[in-house]
């Protein structure tokens, strides 16, 4: 399979996935009982049947669900119009945009530390197999993998806030909200410490486990023996020959794990009252704010699909067997 074909396949897959997500997102919410118009206006407000019908026509709800409503919605979504939140009474896309930045900040920091630490720890653990270091790292990863994210968050929250005096939640202290970004950076950073730590620990376990077993497999290959025979030191063998090969499965895993990453964000944001997309989903769920839920789900899914595509493209640069025929 040459690179063009590989990327072509991945692109088609991304499009198909997008289609599935859109269809799911649209129809799942259409299945729901109750009149959307009723919900938009709010429960207490009185409205005449005529007005209600007019509103229905305005929202296009008098047309058949498929194909008219579906394609109308599709066009709206494509132009960024995700409807109005029932609970917040604001356009969904505006709410999402504000939250996206926070989530991205949190998730990318967590992923970054987890990947770096996971690769280094996994490499060393695989190399020093069966030493106390390896056993320790292995136990840590297994426990980290088995720990529910939200519970770890709760413990860190309890410990961090009472012993270290770190903030218990939020993105930023209330008094700092209106100040310029750079001035409040330390404050934002302080708020990020505990959530990032939680995410890092949770992701780290899996990355380390994969890296370790990948390293073990690579180290039993003949080309490692060749590298040893060339007179390279252990570190040189690890760095020049083992690392690149062993990292291939980790890259794949990072891509495949983006969904998992999102789950982590939902839990962590919920526990730390961190105003990101994850918490938004949780709130929308509790308040039964379906347009918001629909929009958030769409945005998350699209981000993951895109990130996946990027990871696939990066992979072709990592593995020459994909790069050239």
């Amino acid at each position, binding site marked *: 399979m040459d690179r063009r074909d590989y990327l072509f396949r991945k692109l088609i897959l991304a499009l198909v996935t997008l289609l599935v997500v859109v269809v799911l997102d649209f129809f799942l919410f259409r299945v729901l009982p109750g009149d959307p118009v009723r919900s938009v206006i709010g429960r207490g407000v009185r409205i005449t049947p005529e007005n209600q019908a007019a509103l229905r026509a305005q929202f296009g709800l008098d047309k058949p669900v498929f194909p008219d409503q579906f394609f109308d919605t599709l066009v709206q979504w494509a132009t960024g119009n995700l409807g109005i939140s029932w609970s917040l009474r604001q356009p969904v896309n505006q709410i999402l945009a504000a939250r996206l930045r926070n989530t991205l900040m949190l998730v990318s920091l967590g992923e970054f530390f987890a990947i770096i630490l996971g690769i280094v720890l996994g490499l060393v653990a695989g190399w020093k197999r069966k030493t106390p270091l390896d056993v320790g790292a292995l136990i840590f990863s297994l426990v980290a993998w088995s720990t529910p994210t939200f519970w770890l968050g709760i413990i860190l929250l309890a410990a961090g806030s009472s012993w270290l005096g770190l903030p218990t939640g939020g993105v930023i202290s209330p008094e700092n909200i209106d100040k310029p970004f750079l001035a409040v950076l330390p404050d934002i950073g302080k708020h990020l410490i505990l959530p990032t730590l939680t995410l890092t620990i949770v992701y780290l376990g899996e990355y380390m486990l994969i890296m370790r077993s990948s390293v073990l497999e690579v180290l039993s*290959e*003949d*080309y490692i*023996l*060749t*590298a*040893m*025979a*060339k*007179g*390279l*030191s252990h570190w*040189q063998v690890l760095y*020049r*020959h083992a690392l*690149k*090969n062993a990292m*291939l499965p980790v890259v794949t895993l990072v891509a495949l794990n983006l969904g998992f990453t999102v789950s982590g964000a939902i839990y962590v944001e919920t526990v730390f009252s961190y105003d990101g997309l994850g918490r938004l989903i949780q709130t929308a769920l509790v308040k039964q704010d379906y347009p918001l839920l629909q929009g958030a789900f769409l945005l998350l899914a699209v981000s993951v699909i895109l990130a996946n595509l990027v990871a696939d493209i990066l992979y072709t640069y*990592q*593995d*020459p*067997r994909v790069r*050239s025929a």
Partner: protein
Amino acid sequence: MALESTQTLLSIRHLSTEFTGSGGSLARAVDDVSFDIHPGETLGLVGESGCGKTTTMLSIMRLLPSSGRITSGQILYDGVDLLSLNEREMRRYRWKEMAMIFQSAMNALNPVVTVGDQIREPILQHDLMDHEAADRRVDELLDLVGISKARKDQYPHQYSGGMRQRAMIAMALACRPRILFADEPTTALDVMIQAQVLELLQHVQRELGLSVMLVTHDLGVVAEVSDSVVVMYGGKVAEYGTSDQVYNSPQHPYTQRLLEAFPDLNAPGEVLASIPGYPPRLNDLPPGCRFEPRCDQRIELCSRLSPELEEVTNLDHGSLTSGSKPFLRHLAACHLCTSLEKRQ
């Protein structure tokens, strides 16, 4: 012929290597093995799978896996005992003095590094020259083995099987080593490609005055290229002599049976001789001679006492050995080959 030189390049003395099995059981993969390699000589190390030939090679390079352990012996390279060196000192010998090629070049080349970089790596590692000179050297080497230098930026998977083995040879020659260990270099290849690779090996050997240790199970390949032959069985040396001695006047019953079992195009007989039974498992060796359970010439002594490797004294098969070149000694580990008084 280089054989006539008095000085040896590599002397293996009483080398023994053990492996620890999963249940703590010990397997003696190499047992008291001794032989010499002279400058410019090609030595064939022949034996069936599990006879310890690859372990011998890895022991010399000190590249055994953690379960393996050299328990005794000396490996004298130019007078230096490699077993007395620490890891850092040993590294200077690897590839610069002794290089290796493997059976499966596909597995022995790193899939994510270009072939050119892999050839250049040991040159830079051993500080032999700067980057530019090293690049030129890579071109020369590729030229020597018959690969277009335009292909040096390609990856191993873009090469065919024969080309990978050529690239492997180029890589092995990168630091101008004095000894080349070739572990089944042609086994995975078709006969025609095998012939091409063997010819290339012989060519570079002549050109560079290399010593080659050819580790293989293929008696035919050894006969084609080797000056001297070590036949191993069950971790021990069964017979050691020049190719002519071993092939035309085999003394050890194992060598004899093995040669009879090897099909010869030029003299096909009615029935191919076979050796009954199976090679011993290394963790369950017979107490006496390793070949005794399968030997058709065994005497009572064989089951009790493991024979030492000694010079062949009772030549029934003509005195070809001492006749042609008196200084080339022919050794065999068999009670039948030693003089009668020693047997008692």
